[in-house]
């Protein structure tokens, strides 16, 4: 008996996640009774932000059953990304500001508008995962992946080990994944905390970083209708962790305007990051609905803390159709080195004393990337699924809103539209 859901079918960016999730799903796979030779899946997703980024992502996944319930999964990903991304510069309400894009072009940003960098990129990736059950209810899943885009490449592998216990009521999982990422920023690698006004202060060298992630998890069948999953995750990032396209504004504390000759500095983040999270999820069948509720508490040594709640309510309909509602809420606290802007001059009531800096180059770290700031995210949406004898098709439409807790950045509005087709042969 093989459950197609067990198969490690992760995409590039989350390629390694597949292994663990697949294994964690093993607590139920053993229950499934459907034999599948080959399962092919394809999804197309459009992620569109209002006046900002647009991503068109396509993933094709093929899973083949081998002897002795082994499975081999190949996955291909192609992304096209375009639009404009906030570059970290503070919004100036009183005057137009001029920013220099990574390619060296200068752009005028109207007063009151958030500064953004236009960009275009394509990403391609491939991954392979091999899952094998062993004697005494052990299962291993191993995988490798590689992805490349114009200024970035990532390669790595993962290994997960799962053990079913107590007549398969309990599944324990241990997983580890590693990745070596190569960064070659467009226009050169910025020198940290150097003036970025003209696009100079860059080096023609590439950088790299190493990711290591590990998970210890347990999933437990509580009764005929309920399943509980709890994970502890520990991740380590080492190397070049800056975003080479982000700057931080240096403003005059009296006027609030960028300082002439030193308006922006390249950001600098610590070169290591230790990340931990505790994730729990409960899946429960009501009489006519299925409820999935998860909660994640995340914390790291950049002093970021977050709470994420995810709720899905699935309602089976007539003729094998299915409707799923989705709500997600995320709240995060800013990194210790996050600053909206740096200031030069005298302290006044509107400025935090720690943001008054005589020479930004002396700081240990500073970033104005709003994603490291304090923010809320909300997602609301629905998915409709149609099942046929040989395939299933689903479409989901979701709305995402991201809001800065301090109301310093413009609120982000985005729409997610995704269509997935799965077929079994």
């Amino acid at each position, binding site marked *: 008996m093989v459950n197609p859901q067990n198969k490690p079918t992760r995409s590039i960016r989350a*390629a390694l996640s*597949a292994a663990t999730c697949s294994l964690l799903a093993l607590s139920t796979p053993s229950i499934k009774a459907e034999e599948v030779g080959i399962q092919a899946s394809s999804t197309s997703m459009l992620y569109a932000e209002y006046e900002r980024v647009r991503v068109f992502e396509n993933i094709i996944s093929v899973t083949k059953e081998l002897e002795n319930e082994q499975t081999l999964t190949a996955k291909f990903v192609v992304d096209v990304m375009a639009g404009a991304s906030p570059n970290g510069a503070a919004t100036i309400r009183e005057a137009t500001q001029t920013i220099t894009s990574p390619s060296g072009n200068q752009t005028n940003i109207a007063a009151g508008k958030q500064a953004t960098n236009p960009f275009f990129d394509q990403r391609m990736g491939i991954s392979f995962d091999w899952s094998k059950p062993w004697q005494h209810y052990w299962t291993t899943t191993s995988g490798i992946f590689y992805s490349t885009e114009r200024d970035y490449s990532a390669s790595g592998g993962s290994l997960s080990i799962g053990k079913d216990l107590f007549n398969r*009521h309990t599944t324990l999982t241990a997983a580890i994944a590693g990745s070596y990422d190569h960064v070659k920023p467009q226009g050169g690698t910025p020198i940290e905390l150097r003036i970025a006004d003209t696009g100079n202060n860059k080096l023609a060298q590439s950088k790299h970083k190493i990711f290591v992630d590990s998970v210890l998890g347990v999933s437990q069948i*509580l009764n005929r209708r309920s399943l509980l999953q709890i994970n502890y995750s520990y991740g380590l990032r080492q190397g070049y962790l800056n975003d080479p396209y982000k700057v931080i504004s240096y403003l005059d504390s009296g006027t609030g305007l960028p300082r002439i000759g030193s308006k922006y500095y390249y950001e600098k983040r610590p070169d290591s990051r230790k990340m931990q999270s505790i994730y729990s999820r409960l899946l429960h069948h009501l009489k006519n609905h299925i409820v999935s509720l998860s909660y994640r508490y995340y914390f790291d040594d*950049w002093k970021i803390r*977050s709470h994420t709640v995810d709720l899905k309510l699935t309602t089976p309909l007539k003729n094998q159709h299915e409707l799923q509602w989705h709500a997600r809420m*995320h709240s995060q606290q800013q990194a210790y080195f996050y600053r909206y802007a740096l200031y030069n001059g005298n302290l006044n009531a509107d400025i935090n004393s720690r943001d008054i800096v005589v020479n930004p180059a002396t700081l240990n770290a500073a970033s104005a990337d709003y994603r490291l700031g304090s923010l809320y995210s909300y997602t609301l949406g629905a998915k409709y699924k149609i099942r046929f004898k040989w395939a299933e098709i689903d479409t989901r439409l979701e709305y995402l809103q991201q809001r800065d807790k301090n109301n310093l950045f413009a609120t982000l509005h985005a729409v997610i539209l995704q269509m997935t087709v799965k077929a079994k042969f």
Partner: protein
Amino acid sequence: MRSLHPKKYFFVINCLCLFFILLTTACDYQRIKPWHRDILSQDRAQLVSDTLEFDADEHIYSSKEAPKGGQGIGGGGCGCN
């Protein structure tokens, strides 16, 4: 959680209440036989019922929020904007 807006706080509290209600219901622990696993064997009952959707969500949220992972191991990166 202290910094949450009251409306969001209300949402989180509701979700936590729902979680505990479900957990209380679910914690009616029973050792079930293989032939009683019909409900949990459905596709929609899997912990990762849609891997491609999971991939897409990981892509979106890991590039728009500071935290990463939790549900599984998430290696590799991107120059996400």
